[in-house]
């Protein structure tokens, strides 16, 4: 089985990865990460979102070997309970989850947006998240969380 070298959450890893495996398979099954979730396998729902070299990406559609040598960041690498990323902290404060299955994608997509564009309009936030589906209808709280995170980041800057 071919070896695959990646940097995951700032740690260099070498895993066995089959030709058929997706990046999502490797992150979940080889590295035991729970953040990225399987939702559709078609890049439609965003539940599996991670960052590849700092850019939001749907890990369910990336063949694992396509990510060779790249830097992957998952929810676990964004922040921890002891030290939340500002977006995670804002999601907690805004209570932006019902079932929480889409939460990973929402946080990763929003954090990528704010890293790029610290002061997005509400319209921009909605557009950025338009490819992340939520069935519970938590959209209101999620948008509020992203705005909250943006204001916190602005205050810290």
């Amino acid at each position, binding site marked *: 089985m071919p070896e695959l070298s990646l940097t995951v959450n700032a740690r260099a890893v070498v895993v066995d990865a*089959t030709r*058929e495996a997706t990046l999502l*398979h490797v992150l979940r*099954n080889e590295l*035991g*990460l*729970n953040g990225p*979730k*399987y*939702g*559709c*396998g*078609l*890049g*439609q*729902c*965003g*539940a599996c979102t991670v960052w*590849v070299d700092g*850019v*939001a*990406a*749907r890990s*369910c*559609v*990336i*063949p694992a070997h*396509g990510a060779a040598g790249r830097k992957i960041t*998952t*929810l676990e690498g964004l922040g921890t*309970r002891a030290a*939340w990323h500002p977006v*995670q902290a804002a*999601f*907690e404060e805004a*209570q932006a*989850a*019902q*079932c*929480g*299955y889409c*939460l*990973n994608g929402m946080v990763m*997509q929003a954090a990528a947006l704010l890293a790029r564009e610290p002061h997005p309009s509400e319209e921009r*936030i*909605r*557009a*950025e*998240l*338009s*490819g992340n*589906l*939520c*069935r*519970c*209808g*938590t*959209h*209101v*709280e999620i948008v509020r969380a992203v705005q909250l995170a943006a204001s916190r980041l602005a205050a810290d800057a």
Partner: protein
Amino acid sequence: MTKSRRADAPLTRAEFLSAEGVLVVTRPTPPAAPPTPGQPIAVSGNPAEGDEILLAVWDDGSASALHGHVDLGTGIQTALMQIVAEELDLGMPCIRVMLGDTARAPNQGGTIASASIQIHAQPLRLAAAQARAWLLERAAEWLGAPPASLEVRHGNVRVIDDASRQLTYAQLVAGQRTVLQLAPDTALKNPADYRVVGTRQPRVDIPAKLAGELVFVHDMRVPGMLHGRVVRPPYAGADHGDFIGNTLESIDESSIAHIPGVRAVVVLRDFVGIVAEREEHAEQAMRELRVRWKAWPGMPDLSNVAQALRDNPSTQRLLIDDGDVDGAIARAAQPMRRTYVWPYQMHASIGPSCALADWQPDATDGFALRVWTGSQSPHVLRADLAKLMDLQDVQVDVIRMEAAGCYGRNGADDVAADAALLARAAGAPVRVQLTREQEHAWEPKGAAQLMDVNGGLDAEGGIAAYDFETSYPSNGAPTLALLLTRAVEPVAQAYEMGDRTARPPYTVDNLRVKVNDMAPIVRASWLRGVSALPSSFAHESYIDELATAAGVDPVQFRLRHLHDERAAELVQATAQKAGWRMRTGPQEYADGGLGKGGDILFGQGFAYARYVHSKWPGYGAAWAAWVADVEVNRKTGEVHVRRVVVGHDAGMMVNPAGVEHQIHGNVIQTTSRALMEEVRFAPQQAGGAPAGEMVVGQPQSGVVANREWGGYPIINFRQVPVIEVMHMPRQGEVPLGAGESSSVPGTAAIANAIFDATGVRFREPPFTPEVVLAALNPLPAPAGGDADADADADAPRRVALPIAQPSRVPANAPWPKRKGAWATVSALLIGGIGVLAGVLGWRSTIAPVSLTAPVYSATTVERGRVLAAMGDCAVCHTAEGGQANAGGRAMDTPFGTIYTTNLTPDPETGLGRWSFSAFQRAMREGVSRDGHHLYPAFPYTAFAKTSDDDLQALYAYFMAMPPVQSATPKSDLKFPFGVRPLMAGWNALFHDPAPYVPVATQSAEWNRGAYLVNGLGHCGACHTPRNALGAEQGGSAFLSGAMVDGWEAPALTGLSKAAVPWTADALYGYLRHGHAPSNGTAGGPMADVVRELQQVPDEDIRAMSTYLASFNPAVPDPPALAAQAVQSAAANKGRLLGAPQRLFDNACAACHHDGDGPTLLGVNTPLALNSNLTSDRPDNLLRTILDGVREPATKDIGFMPAFGDALDDAQIVELAGYMRARFAPQAAPWPTLAKDVARLRADRAANALNR
């Protein structure tokens, strides 16, 4: 994180009951409920398991609280914690809530009917109060003070007047064990004294989810766990009929023999599953296992849901018959008969269902089967699993973990049973994950419903009569594995579930309510607001219609007939909060504040309902009223719900924040259901579904056809309304269920608002743009409207803004020199000799050589490596999955199949015995070392242009490679192409072996480009069309585009259909990086070429670009032209609304947008600039949709999923047709898309078989 506490530890009732240092409150296992005809199965508790545990207070100060329901994302875990904290006077962080697990939680039935707090929290609340009383009494005894002199805070009992005298709960329970039986008459706290209940509390489950900790069943892993996948039968959506469990014909296990790590293939009648060591291999096996099915009758025709429901046999139940309904209708001043129709809808969980099962028949703990599941009915599931596996229920341990929100019953139970069967077969723990397609296709749907209302107005404008009849196809949905294995008989069973909220909320003297109970048509289960939401849609639309007929404001009309005070207060307060505009008919706001002639019609609609559920007459959950503000675009039919104001009366709100979030969720989900959601069924096939393997892309007769989010879209962030919630102040009342109530009036409020905006009444959701437009059209111009603005109001149509037409080839294009007439004649002569010689078998063999050591310098070898990359040698000379340059790749040509040769220096099978002269002759003349002719699929016709010096370097590189032994398979060519000597004649006619001669009038860069493009680069091999004998055509046909290997190699000259002609810069970007901002991305075989070109130095890429650009017209401002093309396509956006547009928006638009969507990995060249959309052939687009992009040319480009398994052929035809119309509005529609899709599917299937 919390440290380990005693409250977290117990896994079973027995562990609670045998522990020391604890106070436990139990209740006897309730006796089996008497069977209720027509109601869903309730599973009684098993007395063998002992009393049920409700609460335990531990000697470390922690407490376990147990409840039989589960948290479906509604936050009941937090609310229950508040209730226990309140009654027990213990801090919330000390409490552990345990939900649903069969071995420890009480059996309180499925988590349904919004009853978790309203009904089922009561035992736990009593238990907490009883425990507190016991603790207080014990403290009083120990402290020697009467209970009245004590107070309790945070698990600490102290004497009010003497703070030094206190005891903790931990101390009070230490060193003993007390078990209390629940006393139903326990005194509860006065709500006026509440400190925790009624306050906004953060959800306790969110931090773990934000940190990616183990919460979801999807993330559960155990040692030795294997991965399972199921293969479902063709009849997606069926749950009755004798074909169920009888349709499997055969499976061919050899079809997956090549997949490593397959541990079991399980076949039990129609249940088919696979277990593999790795998840990706289980998925591969699921796709590749060849299964033959017998013919089956097909699903009933659901193209007309109303008719299907009328035709479905039913039994009528008369629920109410007050007054003289028939007489009143006969006497009505304005009789009114209306029909409302509800479609089948999906639960549409974001996470497809998943479960993990472990089979341990000899386990010492007595559990032969342990299942981790996201089920909402763990005890019912336990009974199902026991039946399926032939076990006692107490041998099954169902551990409930969180899952994606289901809003009713999704595939969670199904997959748990699947996992059980696979775990037993594999003898190991097996995790089964349903695919998105399986979840969509097989989840038991929210049922369709038909509501007929007859009645009307009396002479005074009151309601003369109300005769309501509803038809609801049932929703039992037995767990799938039970049906597929025939552990239960697949018989259609009618439940009495259609009666929720069947009674209208208004007081009517002449009232009749009838329910037609009927068996299911499609496999269905309860979905949020089960049967109440559709019934309320009818009630609240009808009352609005009556108000309009009476000429009375709809809110006032309701209030006249609404005699429930709490309801009337809610209605008034909500209308006031929303700024309700009194009206006596549709307002049809034409200007909507946008000025005269604007396209947006504004409307406001009202609706009210109290969700009444459970067995008739049922009981009420919360009250809810909506005011919806909508915008209707009269030119496109689009409905946007701009704002929703919800008034809500849930009585006491345990956690007001939680209730508010539930209301938001209900509003958003209901808006989605009203505007866009509808299950579609595949067309009927005459004679039912045929026998054989399931054909990918062709769903069988009548089955569920939408299998991903493009076909079944749900609302996204852009469409979410502004929501304002108004809670009625009722904290002194009992708490009422809030999980569903606010969804119930929603659809009618939206329909009423659309009526207000347009004057058109919609009685059948979803209110999609095409439905609305068809009903609005033709809409008379508003009085005083601007004529211009209305000129194209009649229909949406394709509009092509003027953009540059395909450009022409420059007049001075420097076509490459071809053979002159004389050269051809002489070549023919020589060729004739060649043919003769060939026929005689005469062609010299070049003596083999034996190389012992590399004879070339490292610099030369390195130069050769770059040249080999330029020549893409490895692309063709590497078999799929084989060693680089070792040959063996099959090349399909119009003349037959040939195989590429081994270029490594292996003496037997490769170039090991080739001298440079032999290599040079092959490259220039197409003759192999042994003298046999090569076919021009090997592009020696181009390679001949290469200089001797470069050929030397190439040769050096091949000779320096490590030898690989790999014999070349024999080619298979049709006559006469199989006669190799004839190639001599071909060469005489078409081949010029002379090296490239620079054109003096052109620059050095241009000449370098020409040398590379026409030489090693052999661009013409793919991009120049060939004549009947397979030779590249000359003149303006040069690089004018051709088909190769099933892909279109588009024209590289001015004949290109690209929206923006190619420039040198664009070509450079494309060849260097795999994409050009104004021209698109390299895909298909071109991706391989670009990948190879990565090794080629920049100046050579520049040179090729300069040369190729000289065949294209000069473009003064490519970005401006590109912007124009993008704008032209964007102008089409609003004119092509409908299912294909929704498919595109939800399947493609996250990545493919014009800069107004998410930023995701990979380039996003606007599709208007993508030559696959502008081409005359749809092949490249269709292939990309079917197969995606797994191996992009460069890492900039990003990846694309294959949609071939998720979309059916009809959807792909729709999608491609839409993309063409939207992104290439200047081009004619592709005429034969359906055939093209079928052809490419067939190619794909054939390739899959050959693999």
